[in-house]
């Protein structure tokens, strides 16, 4: 299958801190891949590196066929990133925001309106300033921007956070729809039960490296024995330390 994300020994620095210390990662087109791992493991940095926001300083990295070390800007308008921050203008209304970001991504107002309707933001909420929204409503607005822009690669950082039950179900169905439409999803989550039910594959990140890459997910509970055979299972990173 065509690789959408292809990282080989990717190193990313935040200032002088190596947030990613050599990541090997493959994501094929149409996959939904879950990133899990403890706080500070490097999940967010993986997503930001895939979006072309954080430079990869060592190793090889390509996303959607774009070599990130050569020109990471070229990939940006083709991916969508839902981060911890909303990426919205506080003083503009929900509709203003979704339409502005949709137009910036060459989408039409009709796409923006459809996306707002899908996220339950049509009607009264559309004309409310973002500053007056609850955390969950902001999340929905950010998701509406993403839906309207139709990215080829969805990068979601804790997409279920701050959402109600209804909203969490909605996120899951959005991911499924995106993949059905030919996109690819890479997301980080701590809500493992829900996330593993959606994901095709689970990758565990620890210490800025891939600790476990397991597929297919959902067949095994967390903490179950790691595969010992064929899969590119375990990064022998202690070697790098000792040598």
């Amino acid at each position, binding site marked *: 299958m065509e690789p959408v994300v292809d990282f080989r020994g990717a*190193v990313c*620095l935040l*200032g*002088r*801190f*190596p*947030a990613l*210390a*050599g990541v090997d990662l493959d994501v094929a087109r149409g996959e939904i891949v879950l990133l899990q791992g*403890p706080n500070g*493991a490097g999940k967010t940095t993986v997503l930001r590196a895939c979006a072309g926001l954080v*430079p990869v300083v060592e190793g090889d990295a390509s996303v959607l066929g774009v070599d990130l070390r050569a020109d990471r800007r070229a990939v940006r308008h083709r991916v969508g990133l839902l981060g911890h921050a909303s990426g919205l203008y506080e003083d503009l209304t929900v509709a203003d925001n979704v339409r502005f970001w949709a137009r910036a991504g060459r989408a039409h107002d009709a796409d923006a309106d459809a996306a707002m309707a899908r996220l339950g933001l049509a009607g009264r909420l559309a004309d409310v300033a973002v500053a007056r929204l609850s955390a969950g409503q902001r999340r929905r607005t950010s998701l509406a921007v993403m839906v309207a822009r139709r990215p080829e690669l969805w990068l979601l950082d804790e997409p279920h956070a701050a959402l109600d039950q209804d909203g969490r179900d909605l996120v899951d169905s959005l991911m499924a729809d995106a993949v059905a439409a030919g996109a690819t999803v890479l997301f980080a989550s701590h809500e493992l039960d829900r996330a593993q039910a959606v994901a095709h594959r689970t990758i*565990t990140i*620890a*210490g*800025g*490296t891939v*600790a*476990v890459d397991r597929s297919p997910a959902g067949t095994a509970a967390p*903490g*179950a*024995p*790691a595969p010992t055979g064929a899969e590119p*299972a*375990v*990064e*022998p*990173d*202690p*070697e*790098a*330390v*000792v040598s």
Partner: protein
Amino acid sequence: MNTTTGGPLEDRETGSGAGLLRVHPDGTASPGSRRFGIVLSVSVVVFLAVALVISPPDSGAGASENAMGEMVRIMYVHVPVANACYLAFFMTALASVMYLWKKTEGWDSLAAASAEVGVVFTALTLATGSIWGKIAWGTWWEWDARLTSTLLMLVVYIGYLALRRAILDPVVRAKRAAIVGLVAFANVPIVHYSVTWWRGLHQEATISRFDPTIDGGKLFALMFGLLLGVALYVWLMIHRFRLQYAEARLESKGLDVALAERRAEAVADRPQAGAPLAAAAQKGTNP
């Protein structure tokens, strides 16, 4: 696990430190720059003797009232430091362009070092200009075109250094500083013309001009001073640049250690993540 990884880490750290010390046992000096420094120190003493004692006072063209007399001597210091400050800022702009083109750390270090030295020379230019003004015009400050534009230039480069201090990430700092370094230099002629026109509107040269008759001993003193100003700039740059370079090396040495430490976090996490993972890690170390 932690004890086995700890050992090599410490060795690396002390190794890198010792390596740096071996390269520069006495800080930023090298035999060449030390000899250069000695020659420079002797030259400064000789220059001061020439400029302040041996060279003749200005008698003006035909002993007119424009003659500057002993006052001319400040010119031997003022003109060389002014020359050096322009040289320094030109170098900052050049290094900024080169950084934006090549994206290598050395050009950024050069731009920063040159701006620091330039700010010192500009302050000296203003101080000597002001002293000369006190004698010639009777006031410490006149809104003379050259003085005013030099003052603005000083503030612009103080802003440049403040910007460098406000950004922690070395790559972001280098890029933004390079653009400001370039803009600051592009701004020099605009400031110069606007201030000159601004002064030109009100009065033209009611103050005595800074143009003594230059010949013989005075010409020698001035040329000697100019040469010495450039040499002093070069000597300061050698040391400032080596210091910047050593700092950058120290940081990049730290990267290997930081990478190893970062990877070790994964090892430390493994026992919590479950026994099978720890076993797998064990397998990785002992194939």
